[in-house]
């Protein structure tokens, strides 16, 4: 058995080294990416470290990594070998085989997936986990997606602080516990809503979903835990900023 394993490993190494050295593979790679619509994909991820056998049956061995708009990792192996999908399940009806093609189209958005397109064909909540859950499964650098802490709301009153870090790390909340059922991901969306008021919170909307007195402190208590007032806001953004400004961009600095 040991001998067999060593033989297999040797064969694989040989195959990989031959493929890496092969001008055929590198030229086909450059042909793919040197087109007019060069996909914004991290270059090194395209050196498919597959062996012929794996690719044929299970697709490229290395994860596909989309860099834009946010880093997303897709594993062929998980979907073919583990989940048992065949190549034609996704190609070409959902995804073109050409590397980066779906990305340059600009059509693959979370909204499109929610409508059942692209990944959303299977990731609908019944066949596979829904696209509005388990964000970190695909968005591998989910912490990079988060806006810098704290979030500062200035409407309807100035100003309220929210820290993603304490809610996700200290209290262990997942993204989908608030997004999008309570808060749209889009920056400033809550502020534009007319019902983003304390009254709504008391009715269990927005922060009030948890801040109800049982899960977390009630939203009609400890007002100044979140409210920092105009003076606190000025301290955060003003010229005489004293603390807590390291992660904050001064809104007036760029002008």
């Amino acid at each position: 058995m040991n001998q067999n394993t060593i033989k297999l490993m040797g064969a694989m190494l040989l195959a990989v080294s031959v493929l890496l050295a092969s001008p055929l593979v590198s030229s086909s790679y450059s042909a793919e990416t040197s087109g007019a619509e060069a996909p914004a994909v991290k270059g090194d991820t395209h050196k498919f470290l597959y062996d012929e056998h794996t690719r044929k049956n299970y697709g490229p061995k290395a994860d596909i990594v989309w860099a834009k708009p946010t880093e997303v990792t897709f594993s062929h192996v998980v979907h073919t070998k583990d989940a048992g999908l065949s190549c034609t399940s996704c190609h070409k009806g959902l995804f073109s085989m050409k590397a980066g093609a779906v990305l340059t189209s600009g059509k693959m958005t979370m909204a499109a997936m929610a409508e059942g397109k692209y990944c959303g064909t299977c990731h609908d909540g019944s066949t596979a986990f829904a696209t509005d859950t388990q964000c970190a499964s695909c968005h591998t650098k989910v912490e990079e997606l988060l806006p810098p802490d704290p979030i500062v709301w200035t409407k309807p009153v100035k100003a309220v602080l929210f820290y993603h870090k304490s809610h996700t790390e200290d209290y262990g909340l997942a993204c989908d516990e608030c997004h999008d059922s309570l808060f749209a991901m889009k920056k400033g969306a809550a502020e534009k809503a007319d019902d983003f008021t304390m009254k709504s919170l008391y009715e269990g909307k927005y922060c009030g979903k948890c801040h109800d007195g049982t899960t977390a402190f009630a939203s009609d208590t400890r007002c100044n835990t979140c409210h920092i007032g105009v003076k606190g806001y000025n301290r955060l953004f003003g010229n005489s900023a004293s603390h807590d400004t390291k992660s904050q961009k001064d809104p007036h600095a760029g002008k």
Partner: protein
Amino acid sequence: MNIEDLEKEINEGIDSLPLQERRKFLKMGLAVTGVFLGGSVLSLTSISHASNQKNADSDIPVEGQYPYPKHYGMIMRQNRCVGCELCVEACKQTNHVPNDHGAWRTAIQEKITTENNTEKREFRPVLCNQCNRPPCVRVCPTKATYKDPETGIVVMDYKKCIGCKTCMAACPYNARYFNEEKYAIDKCNFCIDTRLAEGKKETACAAACPARVRIFGDLKDKSTEIYRLLQTPDSKIWVLRPDTGALPNVFYMNG
């Protein structure tokens, strides 16, 4: 507040108190206690205690002892204040308070304490206390500032004011400023000319407050909310700097 807590407070000394006040303070015994927000002495005498005093020196007005036909006052439910300063904005708009440094009719004071590495914020709205015994009125050489005989509001006659600023020095609450445009002293007058004269029931600041911190009304009128709040037995109500003997008509409570 008990004696043990009091012993931890820093003694402010008696240098800043006039002789008359010292004498009165000693006469009053130990009813006056506490140090808060910048070291002002304030009374934590509960209303039930205060109304037992049954004299004109009581900080909380005693039933049947209102000197004015309409006796306007304000009570701040202080712990509701989130420092949004919508009141300050509304006041500036309504009463044309200039944007100059030091020009103000109402403001929010902020106090930050650190407990177990967490910041605790407190906000306190302040304005002219419309005292029953206003030191500013006593010192005015031209009688430009006086108690309005109808409402008890301390008002200004801008034409008579010579700008000597003696009243500014006399005010225990620093509630007066010199208005360059009017070339006279200006101060909060409970919107007597800008809102009450038009039949509105509230001051601009009270109307603007989203948290209903400021309750404005006639202390004599039993149908008003301020009457109910002031005359609830055993509620804890305090005034700022009761030691001056000015008998302010702006009260503070939590609730």
